[in-house]
């Protein structure tokens, strides 16, 4: 008898994160329903929104993509195109930010020279780069990717540079005492120590990129989850806007968790 109580308790402890998640979701729906009732239905409630969910994912083909019907695309097509842009911009941004951050962190001159530029440009809303992107890329899609690229530069750059500049003297002494070559120093001391910092930067970058893509696609139009939000608003379907908000939130959560997982994998302990 005692053991069953114990194992029951243990099971409860095991599934408690799921229970909490469901509880918090229920709480959200409750508040939402209250707002729905208070606004006398101006803002759609959870039930009608979930019906749209079903409509978008089950009743309609979420992968609907007919060239003869450019006005409408399935929700997954929109989502995938947004994610594609985010990862392209993020990838290019990281490709520039990581090496630059490594250089910046390892030289005092480099740090002092580049830091002011970063400090001035970092607080600028990424949306402000959109017009420049339009001129540079000659297309709205290219401009969005350019904007994500700029967005992803700063967190990765700053965190990488900080990581490198905080390598303990002890570790550097090992390289000095045993005459490590530059390559050995970079691969055996600098990168292993800095990797967790780099991943913090990457995680912040992808988070901001996912925030920015929605606004960017509202500006650029055409395709993407941000465009879907704007398009649904213009079509007068607030249910679709709310559905999109939930999808954006869930994808953002997933991205963060995925990066967190990878970060834990690459961190020595």
């Amino acid at each position, binding site marked *: 008898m005692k053991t069953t109580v114990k194992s029951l308790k243990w099971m409860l402890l095991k599934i408690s994160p799921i229970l909490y998640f469901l509880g918090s979701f229920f709480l959200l729906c409750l508040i939402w329903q209250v707002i729905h009732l208070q606004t006398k239905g101006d803002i759609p409630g959870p039930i009608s929104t979930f019906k749209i969910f079903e409509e978008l994912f089950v009743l309609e083909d979420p992968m609907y993509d007919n060239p003869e019907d450019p006005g409408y695309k399935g929700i997954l097509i929109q989502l995938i195109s947004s994610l594609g842009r985010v990862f392209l911009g993020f990838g290019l941004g990281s490709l520039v930010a990581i090496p630059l951050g490594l250089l910046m962190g390892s030289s005092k001159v480099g740090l002092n020279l580049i830091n002011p530029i970063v400090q001035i440009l970092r607080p600028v809303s990424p949306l402000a780069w959109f017009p420049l992107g339009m001129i540079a890329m000659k297309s709205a899609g290219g401009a969005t990717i350019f904007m994500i690229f700029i967005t992803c530069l700063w967190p990765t750059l700053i965190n990488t540079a900080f990581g490198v500049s905080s390598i303990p003297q002890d570790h550097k002494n090992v390289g*000095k*005492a045993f005459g490590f070559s530059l390559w050995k120093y970079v691969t*055996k001391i600098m990168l292993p120590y800095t990797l967790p910092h780099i991943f913090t930067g990457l995680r912040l970058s992808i988070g901001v990129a996912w925030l920015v893509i929605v606004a960017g696609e509202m500006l650029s139009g055409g395709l993407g989850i941000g465009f879907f939000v704007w398009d649904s608003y213009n079509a007068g379907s607030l249910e679709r806007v709310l559905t999109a908000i939930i999808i954006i939130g869930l994808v953002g959560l997933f991205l963060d968790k995925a990066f967190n997982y990878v970060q834990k994998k690459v961190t020595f302990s």
Partner: protein
Amino acid sequence: METKSYLVDSATEFHKLPASTSININNVTVSFDTPKGEFIAVKDINLTIQKGEIVSLIGHSGCGKSTLMNTISGMVSPSKGQVIANNKIVTGPGPDRGIVFQNYSLLPWLSVYKNIYEAVDSVLSDKTQSEKRTIVEEHLKMVNLFEHKDKLPGQLSGGMKQRVAIARAFAINPSILLLDEPFGALDALTKASLHIELLKLWNLDNRNKTIVMVTHDIEEAIFLSDKVVVMNNGPAATIREIVDVNIERPRNKKDIVHVPEYMKTHDKLLGLLMDKFSIEDTH
């Protein structure tokens, strides 16, 4: 200037030094620029260490003994004077001088094996991979850590970590070994067994390696050394006295305390380092 006449690798200038000289510290002063002005750590130090000698630098905390040792390793450059090691003026760290740091300085993301391997790979780069592996394995066995070779430093005790650091320093086969308070963070029993291991490694190499060690432990200094260099208190520390330890090797940890010479040396060092021996002593 007199220092100019010494050229690195110039054999003609060093014939003045006997061939058995391993380290020659020549009129060395080290000062650092601090926000409060110039800080002189050690001043006008002259010290000659013979090949195969074990020498301890002893003194109170902050007396500049580590700084002095770092001029031999090349981690610190003297502001005046020069250090000659293996007939070359020291201009920076080099593979002829192995270093064991106080805090072990193992790379936490590399296994025990890898920590030693990377040092060997870097210094003995002309050897083949299998030769390098053999060297690493041999040295792991010497310090009885072979079965722990795949562990990370974080999984080892302090004593084991320091054995890895010692194995790493010996593996690159330097002619000079520099130890910076190597056993300072260890308990008395671990310390004693590591003293014996250190002497064992030194013996295996036919007592050819010169060992310079920084310590503040009198017993340790006597047990291991041929000479104990007692430093004055800093700043601008100088050498107070060099005490010879005339106790025959091999020394026995248990018996040595009964040797009259041991007690004599111990008293002498204690007298040099402390000026109060009981609560009645006033100054």
